[in-house]
């Protein structure tokens, strides 16, 4: 079964540092997403990406965040000047089409900001 691969599985960073979370979506998928889940809380939408541009972003996804698809396989989330409250699981997902059906999530990157 095709998978969405995320690296690293765990990242510890100091407050104020920049981190890049990496994702390899399923190869024939066209829509890409980032979500995050703070420990004990809901899964929250961050951003969706289609045709090399952002389709939609949430209020959480402010200027601190950026996404990029630098080549045909990788999809990255950059967080600049990390804060303690950025500590969370970050999930990448991809889908063949919009909304719900056939969404595949990765196993996540646990980001710890100290």
């Amino acid at each position, binding site marked *: 079964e095709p998978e969405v691969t995320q690296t690293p599985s765990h990242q510890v960073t100091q407050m104020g540092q920049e981190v890049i979370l990496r994702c390899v979506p399923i190869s024939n998928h066209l829509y890409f997403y980032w979500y995050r889940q703070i420990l004990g809380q*809901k899964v929250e939408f961050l951003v*969706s990406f289609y045709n090399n541009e952002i389709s*939609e972003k949430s209020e959480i996804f402010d200027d601190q965040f950026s996404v990029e698809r630098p080549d045909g396989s990788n999809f990255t989330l950059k967080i600049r000047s990390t804060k303690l409250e950025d500590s969370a*699981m970050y999930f990448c997902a991809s889908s063949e089409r*919009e909304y*719900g*059906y056939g969404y595949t*999530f990765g196993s*996540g990157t646990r980001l710890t900001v100290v």
Partner: protein
Amino acid sequence: LAKTTQPISMDSYEGQEVNITCSHNNIATNDYITWYQQFPSQGPRFIIQGYKTKVTNEVASLFIPADRKSSTLSLPRVSLSDTAVYYCLVGDIGDNQGGKLIFGQGTELSVKP
């Protein structure tokens, strides 16, 4: 996007059938109902999606009454490995909003031996 309401938690025993009901009174004509499963420290996993009546796959069944104001996810003969959080989501496949999913708190299912 329609708001959903589902029980916070449920307990079951191995081998039993588990039914998790989700209320979505404000579901719109174009909305589909989708269920996801999440294990601890893993990403959500798509289980099943439907629009009306009944949908069945190798994992679960989804029952949707005629008024579509609720839906029931049915897991046959659960095992310990079905212990997870189950999310009900409602939305329009073609609403051109980038396909974002809005997760609620979900139902934490605990399966005991």
